[in-house]
């Protein structure tokens, strides 16, 4: 636990040094999406009783939570492993692989949560009324945690920055657009919908949206998110154990 905190301590130290840069870079794309889809389109379109703005904000939130946690862990760890070699400092330290994995995942998760909170605040300024209870933040946390863990797995097994970017283009980018972030998944042909329903981001979008719009309790989706979180974390542990 203490070792996990040490890793997060470093993360906080770095974050404090470049807080502005961090917010600036993690907010640009959600802001654009909010403006284009939420404000531009959203005000005029009604969508099953709610405005499109209120429909789309949980989707944008899920998407940017995914992006910022994945990138926070994936990019920085990949660079630290391959380029700066700072990962070695942690690998030669007498700390358990569990603590190391958890520290790294929580570090990225923290960044994801921070930028999500800022987006929530912005969305309210744009006029979206969302219901944010504890479960909303549970869903948000699970989303950040699982994508941060996925980032860790990618960072540990992918051996070049180019392949890292490729992975992001083929896995993260399609999810951003297809997983019920901007429209409901059931608009797809059934086969495509089935595939999309397996992806974790779909369940992030469903959970956040159902809770925010008070449309029931997304038990199944939350369980799916938790399962993904556990699985990716375990996978992350496994690859960290083997990294050389």
């Amino acid at each position, binding site marked *: 636990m203490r070792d996990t905190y*040490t890793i997060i301590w*470093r993360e906080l130290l*770095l974050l404090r*040094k470049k807080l502005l840069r961090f917010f600036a870079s993690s907010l640009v794309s959600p802001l654009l999406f909010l403006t284009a889809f939420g404000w531009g389109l959203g005000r005029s379109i009604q969508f099953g009783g709610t405005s499109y703005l209120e429909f789309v904000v949980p989707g944008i939130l899920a998407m940017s939570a995914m992006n910022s946690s994945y990138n926070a862990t994936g990019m920085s760890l990949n660079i630290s492993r391959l380029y700066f070699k700072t990962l070695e400092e*942690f*690998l030669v330290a*007498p700390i358990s692989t569990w603590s190391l994995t958890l520290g790294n995942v929580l570090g990225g998760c923290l960044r994801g949560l921070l930028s999500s909170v800022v987006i929530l605040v912005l969305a309210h300024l744009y006029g979206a009324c969302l219901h944010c209870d504890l479960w909303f933040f549970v869903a948000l946390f699970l989303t950040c945690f699982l994508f941060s863990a996925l980032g860790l797995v990618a960072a540990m097994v992918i051996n070049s920055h180019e392949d890292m970017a490729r992975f992001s283009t083929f896995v993260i980018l399609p999810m951003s657009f297809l997983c019920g972030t901007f429209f409901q998944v059931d608009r797809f042909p059934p086969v495509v919908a089935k595939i999309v329903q397996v992806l974790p981001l779909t369940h992030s979008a469903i959970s956040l949206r159902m809770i925010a719009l008070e449309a029931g309790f997304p038990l199944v989706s939350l369980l799916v998110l938790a399962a993904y979180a556990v699985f990716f974390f375990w996978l992350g542990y496994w690859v960290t154990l083997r990294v050389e």
Partner: protein
Amino acid sequence: MIEIRGLCKYYGSVKAIDGLDLTVKSGEIFGLLGPNGAGKTTTVRILTTLSRPTAGKVFINGFEVTRQAMQVKKEIGVVPQHFNLDLELSAWENLELHGRLHKIPSKVRSKRIEELLDFVELGDRAHSPVEHFSGGMKRRLMIARALMHNPKILFLDEPTVGLDPQVRRRLWDLIRNLNRRGITILLTTHYIEEAEILCHRVGILDRGRLIALGTPEELKAKVGRFVVEVRDGDETKYRVFGDRDQALRFAATLADDVVIRESNLEDVFIELTGHRVGGSDA
């Protein structure tokens, strides 16, 4: 004490280490010498738990590196070949991170950081970001970092590469000082004179195998004390002889451009490996 038994490390078909047996005694400065690609870094990485052996066993003060990695990590300090400091953090913060990772209580930690920064003469730069440090400063900071938790064995992988002569000499003094305080040191280098000046014993590694082992004196005696250098067109040829008379007699048979001198570790190296040591300024 470091005990290496039958160590092998293969990367696909590349045999980076190929059956290495070696014992480094407590309290000595041991130099691992070898040309580029000889397997020095690979050896150090295995000894420091960063890489797993394909075959063989390594014991660090009695702890086996793969099964008892946690105990091993507490015994050792590591200064890798490349700079792996956190560039965005200050010198102090780099050391603090290391101290925290080794669970040094915060009071002791601060004192130790101060001491060590003074020891490596970086006291006045404690709070500037490492990004702007020179190569020598970074290397010294890395040594300070490796010493934070009072390791019994210190590994230095090519500690003086790319440093100017003054800085190198200061680092040598630093390494000797540490050794006098009882720290066992294993360093790798391809600067021959570094090994000759600094190390109690050296091992010469070539293509993953140990091809010679002993004190610099022993090794020089083994290949011959005297060297005759002959200019042959654009190339200089070397011949090694056991005593001066032999060398003189050989020199007399040659026409011009001969130099007779005492042998050094570099001659040992060339004699044994058949090629010069890597590094243009070696």
